[in-house]
C-alpha cells in the first residue's frame, strides 16, 4: 500500500531499507525533516543516529564509519553541503563509499530556504579540491527520493564513491504517495575496510600518497572508475521525445514544471518533449548527442544561471541552439510562464 509522505521522510525509509545503519547529520532548513525522521527511525531500530556539532564533524564521522565498513549517510542543504566539501574530497581520494542528500536552497551565502538548483556546480564539478567526481542522482518525485536512496548504498559500495541525492526544497517538502521495496539490503564485508580484526589489520584508508607515481596512479584509477560509472549507470527519462521538434531538458522540480508545459504546448499543437537526466554524473552525453541531430532546439530549464545548460552544450557540440531558461532566487516558474517563454523562443 502506498503511503503519502514528504520527500524528506521517504529518504529515511529508503535508506533503512537500503541497508544504511549509521546517520550523522546536522539540521538545516529545508532538509531538517530528514534528520528528524532519521532520529526517530534509526534510533528506534537500533541503528545509529548522531546529531553532530557541525556539518564538518558529521561528514568526518561519515568518513570514519564508512571506513569501518558501515553503510552511512548524512543530509543537508546547500550551505551545509559547502561545509562538507573538504571531506567529500577526502572521501573521493580515499575511495570510501558514502551517501549524501542535498536538499538545495537559495544561495549565495545564507540566501534563503526556498528551492534553487544552484549546487549543480558544487556537487558535480568539485566543491572540494582535486580531480574527483561524485555520482549524482536527481530525483523529481517523492518516489524517486525513496528509490534513489534505496539503491544509493549498493552503488556507493560497488564503486567506493560518494553518491549524492541532489534534491531541492520542493522535492524535499512536497508529499506524494510512495511505495517501498520490502527486501532489506545489507552491506557485505569489504576487503579494504577497517574492522578492528586480524584480517583487516593491515588495511589503510588514506588519500595521502607521498610518491608522485603512486599519487598519479591513484588519480588514474579514479578516472578509470569514473569512466566505468559513465558506462554502467547513466539514467534518463524521455517524455514525448520521439516526434518532438524541440525538447526541454530539466531535472528535479524544474522537470515537473516542464512536464506540465509539454502537455500544455502539445494541446496548442507545438511538438515539444522532455528529456530528464536522472543521473547528473554520469551525464547522459551520448543520448543528448543523438537527440541533437533529431530536434531543432533544446531548452534547458533550471533554477540557476544555466549550470546544466553548459554541460548540454558540451554534449551537443553546437549542432543546434541550446537555450537557457533560468529562474533563481527561490522562484519556481509557473507553467504559463514557461509556456510563454517557449513560444517566444521557438
Amino acid at each position, binding site marked *: 500500500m502506498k503511503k*503519502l509522505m514528504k520527500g524528506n521522510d521517504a529518504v529515511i525509509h529508503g535508506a533503512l531499507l537500503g541497508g544504511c545503519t549509521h546517520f550523522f547529520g546536522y539540521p538545516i532548513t529545508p532538509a531538517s525533516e530528514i534528520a528528524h525522521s532519521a532520529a526517530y527511525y534509526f534510533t528506534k531500530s537500533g541503528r545509529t543516529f548522531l546529531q553532530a556539532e557541525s556539518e564538518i564533524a558529521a561528514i568526518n564521522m561519515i568518513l*570514519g564509519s564508512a571506513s*569501518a565498513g558501515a553503510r552511512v549517510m548524512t543530509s543537508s542543504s546547500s550551505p551545509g553541503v559547502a561545509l562538507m566539501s573538504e571531506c567529500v574530497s577526502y572521501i573521493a581520494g580515499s575511495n570510501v563509499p558514502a551517501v549524501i542528500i542535498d536538499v538545495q536552497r537559495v544561495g549565495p551565502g545564507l540566501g534563503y*530556504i526556498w528551492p534553487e538548483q544552484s549546487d549543480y556546480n558544487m556537487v558535480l564539478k568539485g566543491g572540494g579540491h582535486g580531480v574527483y567526481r561524485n555520482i549524482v542522482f536527481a530525483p523529481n518525485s517523492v518516489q524517486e527520493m525513496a528509490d534513489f536512496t534505496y539503491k544509493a548504498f549498493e552503488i556507493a559500495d560497488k564503486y567506493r564513491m560518494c553518491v549524492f541525492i541532489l534534491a531541492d526544497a520542493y522535492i524535499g517538502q512536497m508529499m506524494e504517495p510512495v511505495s517501498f521495496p*520490502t527486501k532489506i539490503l545489507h552491506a557485505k564485508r569489504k576487503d579494504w575496510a577497517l574492522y578492528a580484526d586480524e584480517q583487516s589489520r593491515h588495511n589503510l584508508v588514506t588519500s595521502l600518497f607521498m610518491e608522485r607515481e603512486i599519487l598519479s596512479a591513484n588519480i588514474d584509477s579514479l578516472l578509470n572508475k569514473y569512466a566505468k560509472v559513465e558506462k554502467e549507470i547513466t539514467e534518463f527519462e524521455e517524455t514525448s521525445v520521439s516526434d518532438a521538434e524541440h525538447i526541454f531538458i530539466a531535472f528535479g522540480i524544474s522537470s515537473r514544471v516542464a512536464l*506540465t508545459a509539454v502537455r500544455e504546448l502539445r494541446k496548442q499543437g507545438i511538438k515539444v518533449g522532455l528529456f530528464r537526466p536522472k543521473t547528473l554524473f554520469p551525464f547522459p552525453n551520448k543520448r543528448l548527442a543523438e537527440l541533437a541531430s533529431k530536434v531543432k532546439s533544446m531548452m534547458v530549464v533550471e533554477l540557476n544561471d544555466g549550470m546544466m545548460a553548459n554541460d548540454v552544450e558540451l554534449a551537443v557540440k553546437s549542432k543546434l541552439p541550446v537555450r537557457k531558461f533560468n529562474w533563481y532566487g527561490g522562484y519556481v516558474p509557473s507553467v504559463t510562464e514557461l509556456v510563454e517563454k517557449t513560444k517566444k523562443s521557438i
Partner: protein
Amino acid sequence: MIKHTKPSAFYDTFERKGPGQKTTHYCPGCGHGTVHKLIAEAIDEMGIKDQVIFCAPVGCTTLMYFYFDTGNMQCPHGRAPAVATGISRTLDDSIVISYQGDGDLAGIGMSEIVHAANRGEKLTVFFVNNAIYGMTGGQMAPTTLIGQESKTTPFGRDPIRDGMPIRMSELINTLEAPVFVERCSLGTAAGVLKTRKAVKKALMNQKNKKGFSFVEILSPCPINWKMDAIQSRKWLIENLEKFYEVKNFRDKDTSIKGQGRLPFLSDDELLKVLDVTADTSSDDDNNRVDIGEHKVKIAGFGGQGIMSVGVLLANCAKNAGFNSTWLPSYGAEMRGGTAYASVVMSNDIIGTPVVDTPDVLIAMNSPSLDAFENSVTKGGTIIVNSSIVSRKVTRTDVNTYYVPATAMANELGLTATAAVIILAFYAKALGIFGVDILKAVVPISIKNKKYIEANLRAITAGEMFFDDYKK
C-alpha cells in the same frame, strides 16, 4: 633475556615509507618517536593489536601509518576525533586512537575534540603539544608560549597581537564525560616513564569501555625550536612545564550514564516499524472518474490547520485511486501572512505540484481571498470561510460557496476543525471522492489521535451543511 626491544605493534620494516625503511621520518630528538614507542609497547602488553585503529592527524604524524602494524586511517586536518567517533560508533570492540598535534587539536580541530570529549566517545586521544607547527615549518600554534618566537611570531608571541596560549587539558577537564585527563612531559626520563603509565591507563580505559581518555604530552620539537635535542628538553622543562602544569587532572572509574543504543531490529521488525508492506495496488483496482488534473489551493493563516487539511485532501485523492501531490508554503509567509497548501490530483502522472491557477480555492481568511481570487480558473470554485471573510467573491465566472466554518467549528468545540468542515463540504460539492473516503482517511492522516473524533464530527457537520445548502 631481552627486557626491552622494538614492540611488535610496529612493523618490522616500514615498507610504506619508501627509502630508509628501518627508521622513522622524524627529526633527531623529536618526541613523536618516543610517544609512538610508548603506545606500541602498551598495545603489545595489552594484546590489542588487532583491535586498534589509529586516526592520524595532519601534521608530522600524518605518516604514522608507516609504522603501526594496526588498522590505520588518515583524517582531514583537525577532524580526527570526528572520524574516530564514526569508527567507534560502528565497531563496538575497536580501540580507536586519535593522535593529534597542537595545531590539529587545539587550532583547526578545537570543535571536534571538545564535542567528542563532551559526548564521552569511547576514544583515546593522545595530544602531543610541542607549542609549534612542525610539518608546516615552525609557525605559531595555539599553545605557543608568550614571547616564543616562531615564523609567524617573529617578534615573539604577543598577547594582544596573537592571543594567549591555550591549556587544553584544563579545558577538557571542565567537561562532564571524560574519565581520564592527564598532562605528561617528555622533558626527563622520569617524565617519559610517567607518560608510559598514562598512555597505558588511557588505552586500558578504552579496552574496558569506560569512555573518553585524554593524554596531553609536552614534547620537544628541536628543529623548529632551533635547539639540539638536549637543549630542547631543558627548554621544555624550564618553559613549557611552567605554563602547562604536569599532572593528572582526572581519573574516574565511570563516565556518563544513559540508555545508549537500542537493540538492533531484524529485517521483519524493521519493516514493521517503518510500516512498509508490499504495494499491491494497480490501476485496475480503482474505478476512478476521469478528473484530468484537478488543482486545489487551501489558504488561511497559521493555526487554522491549513497544512494538515491539505494532507488530508491529498490522502483522500490517493485512496480514491488518483495520483496526488501536496506542497506547503513555508518560510517568512508562515510567520504572519498567508499560509497555503497546494494539492494536485490527477489520473495521470502529475507535472508541477505548484498550483498557480487553482480549480478550487478554499479561502479561510480575507487576505487569502484577496491574494488568490483572481488566479482561480474560469469555471472553477471558491469556497469561503464566511465566519471570518466578510466580503463576497467579486468574480462571476466561478462557482462560489459560503460556509461559516469557524462558527460551526466553535460550536463543535474545536476551532481548528473549521477547514475540515469545508473539506467535507468540498467533497460533497465537487464529487471527486466520497465523504466515506474522507472519514476513512481521518484516522490515518490526523497525527494526534485524540482529535480524530472531533474531526469526524466536523465532517458530518460539513456534509449536512452542504445538504442544507442545496435546498
